[in-house]
């Protein structure tokens, strides 16, 4: 019996050590680290994307709860530059890359029904392309357990633990400087998050050290352009439309005020969406359907209400702060009319 117990205990112990090290180092960003976000808020720093990893969903929930949120924006990575006004504490940006109608529904269900919220909902046309694969931004406990017990993750963790002093206890991260801002980071903080959940590219703060991103041009073909989100697009996916409807219904049941919008497009690419025979039918169907859908739930749809010059899109996909500020002003105006 003693040797049986020894076998079981030792096995559990070794696996526990593997899991603990992987949990601590988390080389693939599968573990949500609330303390990193708390440290960023405490020190008035940004939070590097490296410490959020694939846990956008948990991060954005934490952003919501860390603030007296009354207004929030949701949507894809293209709404992430919509930020609070100076000194505004009641605004949160709950958008994240990989958002889709199904993730919106989960997020809305996880948020408290009260106090009443004003929601700015950025809807992407490509969400309704069946080919758009929704990444897992809220991994299950089982998935995380698999990761923690995985030998390859352990080995990577061990190598990082050995080489990088800032992942060794008592530290789990370091305070890095990007331009004139500090960020809670690991190795290379190329993307950072403000405490309100909006995003800051490091090249905005220190263009010499951090290179700008470049998108794949439209001429490369739909399979490559914008990660292939618009490729092989035939019709609007009914299941995803129904999920968006459920999300709006839930918001209506909670008496939330929702303003829907399509994230701004650079003029040349809006022209492509309007005229390219592979895209135009679905794009126009999307633009026709959204006002009707939002009206059904007595919500406001402002569509592509803000036009920004092409220079406001550093990678021809995501709008910059200037464009997003104009969009925020337009959303605030629409929300005032709703109230």
């Amino acid at each position: 019996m003693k040797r049986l117990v020894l076998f079981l205990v030792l096995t559990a112990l070794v696996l526990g050590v593997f899991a603990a090290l992987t949990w601590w180092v988390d080389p693939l960003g599968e573990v949500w680290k609330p303390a990193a976000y708390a440290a960023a808020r405490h020190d008035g720093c940004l939070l590097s994307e490296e410490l959020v990893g694939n846990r956008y969903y948990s991060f954005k929930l934490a952003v919501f709860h860390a603030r007296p949120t009354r207004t929030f924006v949701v949507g894809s990575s293209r709404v992430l530059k919509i930020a609070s006004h100076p000194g505004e504490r009641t605004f949160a940006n709950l958008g994240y890359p990989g958002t889709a109608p199904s993730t919106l529904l989960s997020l809305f269900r996880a948020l408290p029904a009260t106090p009443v919220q004003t929601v700015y909902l950025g809807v992407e046309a490509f969400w309704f392309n069946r080919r758009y694969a929704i990444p897992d931004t809220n991994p299950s406990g089982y998935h995380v357990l698999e990761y923690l017990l995985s030998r390859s993750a352990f080995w990577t963790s061990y190598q990082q633990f050995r080489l990088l002093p800032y992942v060794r206890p008592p530290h789990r991260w370091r305070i890095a400087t990007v331009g004139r801002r500090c960020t809670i980071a690991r190795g290379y903080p190329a993307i950072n998050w403000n405490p309100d959940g909006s995003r800051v590219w490091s090249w905005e703060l220190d263009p010499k050290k951090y290179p700008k991103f470049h998108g794949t041009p439209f001429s490369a073909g739909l399979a490559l352009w914008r990660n292939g989100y618009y490729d092989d697009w035939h019709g609007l996916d009914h299941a995803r439309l129904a999920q968006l409807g459920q999300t709006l219904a839930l918001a209506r049941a909670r008496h939330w005020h929702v303003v829907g919008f399509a994230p701004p497009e650079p003029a040349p690419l809006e022209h492509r969406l309007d005229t390219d025979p592979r895209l135009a039918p679905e794009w126009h169907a999307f633009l026709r359907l959204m006002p009707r859908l939002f009206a059904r739930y007595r919500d406001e749809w402002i569509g592509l209400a803000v036009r920004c010059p092409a220079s406001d899109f550093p990678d021809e996909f995501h709008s910059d702060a200037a464009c997003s500020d104009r969009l925020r002003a337009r959303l605030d105006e629409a929300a005032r009319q709703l109230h």
Partner: protein
Amino acid sequence: MLFNSFPFILFFLPAVAVAYFAVPQHRLRLLLVIGASYYFYAYADWWFPALMAGSTAISFTVGRLLGQETNERRRKVGLAVGIAGVLALLAYFKYTAFAGGYALDFVHLITRRSFPDARHFLHGIVLPIGISFYTFEGISYMVDVYRGTLQAERDPLRYAFFISFFPHLIAGPIVRYGILQPQLTQKHHFDADRVRSGLLLFALGLAKKVLLADGLARWVDHYLATPGQLGLVNAWLSALGFGFQIYFDFSAYSDMALALARIFGIELPWNFDRPYRSASPTEFWRRWHVTLSTWLRDYLYIPLGGNRKGAGRQDLNLLATMALGGLWHGASLNFVAWGVYHGVLLAGTHHARRRGLSLPRPLGVIVTFVLVTLGWVLFRMRSAHAIGALYAGMFGAHGIGGVPGHLALYVVVASALVFGLPEEWRWPVGRWNTALVAATAVLFAVAVSSVYTSHPFIYFRF
């Protein structure tokens, strides 16, 4: 569910084992394990258990009828109906697409019509894992009852346990009811030594699978993806690597099956005994997948006449038995070719023996190992073109080529284990001291942490 998966190791096995020993009544325990086994099977696809239940019902009912019936003619008809019943399921799910595909190709050749709907239907037939194994178990039960070497089972619970018991359900060993029946009549009390012994063997099996077989698979798959580019050294190392990979993969599964059954107080028959140490093809088949080779011997080769009807007929019987054995592995002509190849080797061995020819044992081991390795090419490569390309490489048609370092290292380690140590189920794990138990626990933890990237067992396909 795979033995080499987190759901099995972390949840299913501990839960079933704890519940098994917590339940006081023997029949409730049987029921518990049957329920768990059906759940284990349903994990692959929800409708698989219905198929297994159907096959179980056929063989159990026929067994009861054979046990009661005294009229020889009726007994023969009953046995034939029973075998046809369970074989029909196997034939439909495993061989319809194979036979239908060739039939459609033939018709296409004559009529130039392609029958896309029929082909679509054939491609849609899913092979339920484990069906080849429990079909053979059902047949052996019915035949044994018919022959009078086994009493027909009256208790459907015990019989359902025999067919569905999850350790041997998916990939064997092919258990005869005569081995399991006496073990199912008594309650097994918790025995820490036996459970420890089972866990240690399971740990060794898992390590063999995820560290050796999967490690070999990574390199073997890489090289064999382009057999036409392999030089002499690469081609031989790839073929040897596959020989070790399939051996470690399948023997690991068998070790784990034995180990799991042992945890529940049941001893299953062993399946492998370092087959690459065999000095002849005959000996190889007495050490490789033994529960299949003895099944083929007892239920196919001997009924066909075995060696009782002259040398020529024996050759034919061997070829037929091994060809069917090859076909059992998979509905594909390369498996038939592999079976026929081994039939020829076995027939050749018998002829050599009759003429008094024999090799010194070390030379016999080398020759047998090389012949078996050449046979694995037929088993592994699915097309005639790929088989030809690999053989061409092995015989130097593509030059000497470089040495694939990682694969060579794996082959050296595998050879040392195979030729230096006995088969793992023979290791006296029950008597191991604290240091060996502790070392195995560490090995087990490393193996468990490797299942995340582990491959399914090769024999799951069969």
